[in-house]
């Protein structure tokens, strides 16, 4: 029994510790989200609420940026869900590890399944087999991200209320995505997906209901798949 408690504490601490260096990227991202929300028609309160409700940075940024603008609410929902559909992939990869867990954990813990918690957990699971340790490592990484993310969003909203519009801080959004883009364009199909996604979104900039981003993204995905197929022997 004592063994189990040790595994739990160790996992929790290791997960939180593994996540800490990533906060260097996560906190500024959360601040930008809050600042954006504060100056958007959607408003700061809604921006703060997206952090516990959606808990997925890229989709949250697009949501607070688009809600209340000319873009139809329906398209905002579609856009955010297209951005978040990648979680299916994480869920499939994590499922074999989650299956050893109690039923309640299997329904509650996926809420914490982010890019960061996923990447760190999969890496750690290569070197450990203990189901209790594995579960609590994931919880540690998940909560280690969750709490700073909430605080950074709130801080950003408070800060954003004081920053004049003329500074053009909205430009920080593409800057954040620029950094996220670098690791996913290291393969040729990934690079093609990004370029076609970008050019497609620009070309579809005039598309009705603000569908440009979704059209660009779908073209980019198709291009990535096509290039990867061509590269196969």
């Amino acid at each position, binding site marked *: 029994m004592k063994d189990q408690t040790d595994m739990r504490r160790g996992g929790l601490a290791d997960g939180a510790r593994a996540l800490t260096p990533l906060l260097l990227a996560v906190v500024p991202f959360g601040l930008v989200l809050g600042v954006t929300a504060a100056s958007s028609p959607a408003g700061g309160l*809604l921006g703060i*609420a997206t952090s516990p*409700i959606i*808990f*997925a940075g*890229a*989709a949250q940024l697009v*949501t607070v940026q688009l809600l*209340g603008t000319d873009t139809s*609410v329906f398209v905002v*929902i579609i856009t*955010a*869900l297209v951005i*978040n*559909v*990648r*979680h*299916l992939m994480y*869920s*499939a990869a*994590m*499922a074999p590890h989650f*299956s050893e867990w109690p039923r309640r954990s299997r329904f509650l813990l*996926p809420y914490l*399944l982010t890019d960061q918690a996923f990447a760190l957990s999969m890496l750690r699971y290569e070197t450990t087999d203990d189901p209790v340790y594995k579960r609590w490592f994931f919880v540690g990484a998940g909560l280690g991200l969750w709490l700073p993310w909430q605080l950074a969003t709130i801080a950003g909203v408070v800060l954003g209320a004081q920053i004049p519009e003329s*500074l*053009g*801080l909205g*430009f*920080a959004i*593409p*800057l*954040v*995505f*620029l*950094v*996220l*883009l670098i*690791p*996913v364009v290291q393969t040729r199909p*990934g*690079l093609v*997906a*990004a*370029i*076609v*996604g*970008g050019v497609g*979104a*620009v070309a579809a*900039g005039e598309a009705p209901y603000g569908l440009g*981003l979704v059209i*660009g*993204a*779908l073209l*980019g995905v*198709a*291009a*990535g*798949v096509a290039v990867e197929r061509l590269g196969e022997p």
Partner: protein
Amino acid sequence: MNWIAVLIIGLGTYLTRLSFIGAFGEREMPGWMERPLRFVAPAVMGAIVLPAVVQPAGVIEFLPAANPRFMAGVIAAAVAYKWRNVSLVIAVGMGSLWVLDWLF
């Protein structure tokens, strides 16, 4: 309406996270599904970044006098490629934008 949208997005996001863990059990993800999903991240990021730097006002412009965000974006991209540090990229990108704005 905005609040309902946020709730729907939150629920949808949770369901994608739950999908294979909670509902589809141990089933492996079929290849036709897995392959496109790997390109969602780069395609989405590209679709967010490029329009924001080449057509922030709805018209495609590259010259700093008409659109300083393109050149600021190129400078920031170089910094992002070299250091991958979010705070640094925000600082350099915003700084470049302000300097270009002031110059032109």
